[in-house]
C-alpha cells in the first residue's frame, strides 16, 4: 500500500473525512483497481461533484476535476467525448449523484458512454451535517427528518440498469477486495458502468440512527451483504433486510464515443 500511496496519492494531509469514515477504504479500492489494470496515470481523469466523497478527487494524483454539486457527469461526458483516449472515472455520493445529479445520472447511463461511476453510498448528506438523501432508508432519522424519513429509497443499481447502464455492480467497504475487483471490471467494461460502494458514515448517519461505531457499521455491512450467487439460493424471507453484492448486471450495447466516430466518418464522406 505504501507504494500505491506514493504513486497515486497527492501529499495533501490531513484529509477532511471524519474518524471511522469509509470513504478512505473506497478511495483506496479505486486506486488499487487502477493499479491492477495498469492504467496510464497521465491518461486517466477523475471527476467528482460536491460532498464528502467528491473530495477524493483532490487527493488523487491524476488530472482531476472537483466540479459542481450533482454535475460531475456532464463534465465527465464532455471530457470523454472530446478525448475518448482518456480513461474517465467519476466519483460521486448518494446525494450528489442521485438527488441533484439524478437527471444526469439516468441520461448518462442511457447514452452508454464509456465512463465508470463509483457512487459512495453512505445513506446521508455528510458534508452539510446529516440530512436524508434519496438513498436513505425509509424511517431513518436525519437532521431534516427528525421524526424519520417518509420517502422510499432508490435502488440505484436497479435504476441504473433500467436507464441503460451496461455494467452494474455493488460492493462494500467491508468486502474491499471484492470492491476492487468490481471497480476494475467496471473500468474495463466498454460502456457506462456503475459501481455502488456501500460505505459507513458513523458520525452523521450512524449516531442519529444508533448504528454503533465504525466497526459496528462495517460488521453490519458484512452481515447484510449477500453475494449474487448466494442470493440465488435464498428465499425472499431469508433475503429480507439484506442486499446483494457483486456484478448485478452486464450487457452489450454500442458505446457512445465509438458511435460518434461513425457519425464523423459519415459526415466527412458526405462532405467530400
Amino acid at each position, binding site marked *: 500500500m505504501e507504494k500505491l500511496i506514493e504513486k497515486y496519492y497527492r501529499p495533501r494531509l490531513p484529509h477532511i473525512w471524519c474518524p471511522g469514515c469509509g470513504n478512505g477504504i473506497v478511495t483506496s479500492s479505486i486506486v488499487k483497481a487502477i493499479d491492477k489494470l495498469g492504467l496510464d*496515470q497521465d491518461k486517466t*481523469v477523475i*471527476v467528482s461533484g460536491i460532498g464528502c466523497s467528491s473530495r477524493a478527487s483532490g487527493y488523487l494524483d491524476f488530472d482531476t476535476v472537483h466540479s*459542481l454539486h450533482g454535475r460531475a457527469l456532464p463534465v465527465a461526458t*464532455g471530457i470523454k467525448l472530446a478525448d475518448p483516449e482518456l480513461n474517465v472515472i467519476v466519483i460521486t455520493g448518494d446525494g450528489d449523484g442521485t438527488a441533484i445529479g439524478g437527471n444526469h445520472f439516468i*441520461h448518462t447511463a442511457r447514452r452508454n458512454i464509456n465512463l465508470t461511476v463509483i457512487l459512495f453510498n453512505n445513506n446521508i448528506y455528510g458534508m452539510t451535517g446529516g440530512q436524508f438523501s434519496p438513498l436513505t432508508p425509509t424511517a431513518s432519522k436525519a437532521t431534516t427528518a427528525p421524526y424519520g424519513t417518509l420517502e422510499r429509497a432508490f435502488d440505484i443499481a436497479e435504476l441504473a440498469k433500467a436507464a441503460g447502464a451496461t455494467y452494474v455492480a455493488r460492493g462494500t467497504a467491508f468486502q474491499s477486495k471484492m470492491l476492487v475487483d468490481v471497480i476494475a471490471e467496471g473500468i474495463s467494461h466498454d460502456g457506462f458502468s456503475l459501481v455502488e460502494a456501500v460505505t459507513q458514515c458513523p458520525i452523521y448517519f450512524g449516531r442519529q440512527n444508533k448504528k454503533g461505531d465504525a466497526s459496528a457499521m462495517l460488521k453490519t455491512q458484512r452481515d447484510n451483504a449477500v453475494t449474487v450467487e448466494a442470493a440465488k439460493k435464498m428465499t425472499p424471507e431469508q433475503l429480507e433486510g439484506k442486499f446483494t453484492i457483486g456484478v448485478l448486471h452486464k450487457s452489450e450495447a454500442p458505446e457512445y464515443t465509438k458511435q*460518434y466516430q461513425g457519425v464523423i466518418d459519415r*459526415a466527412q464522406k458526405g462532405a467530400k
Partner: protein
Amino acid sequence: MGKVLLLQGNQACAEGAIAAGVTFFAGYPITPSTEIAEIMAKRLPEVGGKFIQMEDEIAGIGAIIGASLTGKKVLTATSGPGFSLKQEFIGYATIAEVPIVIANVQRVGPSTGQPTSPAQGDMMQARWGTHGDHPVIALTPASVPECFTLTIKAYELSEKYRMPVLLMLDEIIGHMREKIEVPDYDTIAKPVRKGPRVAPSEFKAYQPDSDGVPPMADFGTGYRYHVTGLVHDETGFPNGSPAATESLIKRLHDKVDRHIDEITMYEEYNLDDAEIAIVTYGGTARSAYAAIDMAREQGIKVGMFRLISVWPFPEKEIAKLAEKVKVIVVPELNYGQMVGEVKKAVEGKVPVKPMSKYDSEPISPKELLEFVKNL
C-alpha cells in the same frame, strides 16, 4: 477565396465558431437560439468535431467545460431561461479559469416570457447572474457579419484571459438575414491557448504570468492538476485562508481590469459634431443608424456610441462622451438596464434619458427619431 453568403445571425455565429477552430458543442434546444445547435450538429462532424445534445441546459455548459479542459475550443448556445440555468457553471468556469464561449440569444422574459420576440433584458444577468464577485466579458453584435467576427473575437478573449465570454445576441440579430462576406477559414488566425512552459514537476496549475493569466495544460498531457470551484491558491488546491481568497478574487478581476483597453470595443457614428448622443447596442443599434440619418436630414445633430463590448463597461469612454454632448439617450429593449451604467459613468454631467421598450416589439427608427425630437 472567400464567399458572399446570405446568412442568419445565428448561422453566422455558428460559422464564426467553426472558423475560430471550435471542435466541440454541447447544448439543449431553446428558442430563439436553436439554429446554432442545429448547424453545429451538422457542421462539427464534417470538420472532425463533436456535437452532443445534453439532457438539460446545465449539462450543456458542464460538458463544454469538460471538453475545454482537454484543450478543445467549445461553444454552447441558449436563450433566457437556459441562460438562467447556466449561471452556476458560468461562475465555475470563471473561478476555475476554463475558457468557454456562451451565445445567449435574448428573448422576452422573465421566465418563459415571449420565446419568439426580441428583448435585451439579460444584460444585467450577464453581468451579475452568477453569484459572488466576478469579472465578465460580454459582446453584443449588431449585424450578421458582426456575429461572425465577434464570435471569433470571443475565442481570442476567452483563450487569452481564461474565462467565459458571453455573446449577447438578441432575437433581432439572431434571426435577421443579411449579406456577409466570409473569408476562407484557413486564412483566419485561430486563437491559441497559452500552454505550460515548464516540465510537469515544476508546474503550478494556477501560478499566473505577469499578465495575471496562468498557462493552462490540456488534460491527458502529463501535468496532472486539480480543477475546483473552491477558492484555491496557485497550486490549484483548496485554500480557504483570507490571503488566498483575497488574492484569487483580486487576480480574477485584474485579468480584465488591467486589459480593459484591449477588450473594449465600440463604434462612433456621426458623433463628431453631435449634441445628442445615442448610446445603444445589438439589434437596437440598427434602428439608431436609420433614426440618426433621418434626424441629420432635419438638421438635428445626433450621433451614436455603439457598445460592441458591453462588459466590462467602457466607463472612461462614456465619461468622455458626456463632456462633448448636451444629452445622452439610451434606447434598449428592456425596462432600463444599461442606462444605469451610462448614468454611473456620466456622473450627472449631462442628462441621461432612458428609452425603454418592453412590449416585445423592436424600437423603430421613427419612434427613436420622435423621442430625440421631443427631448
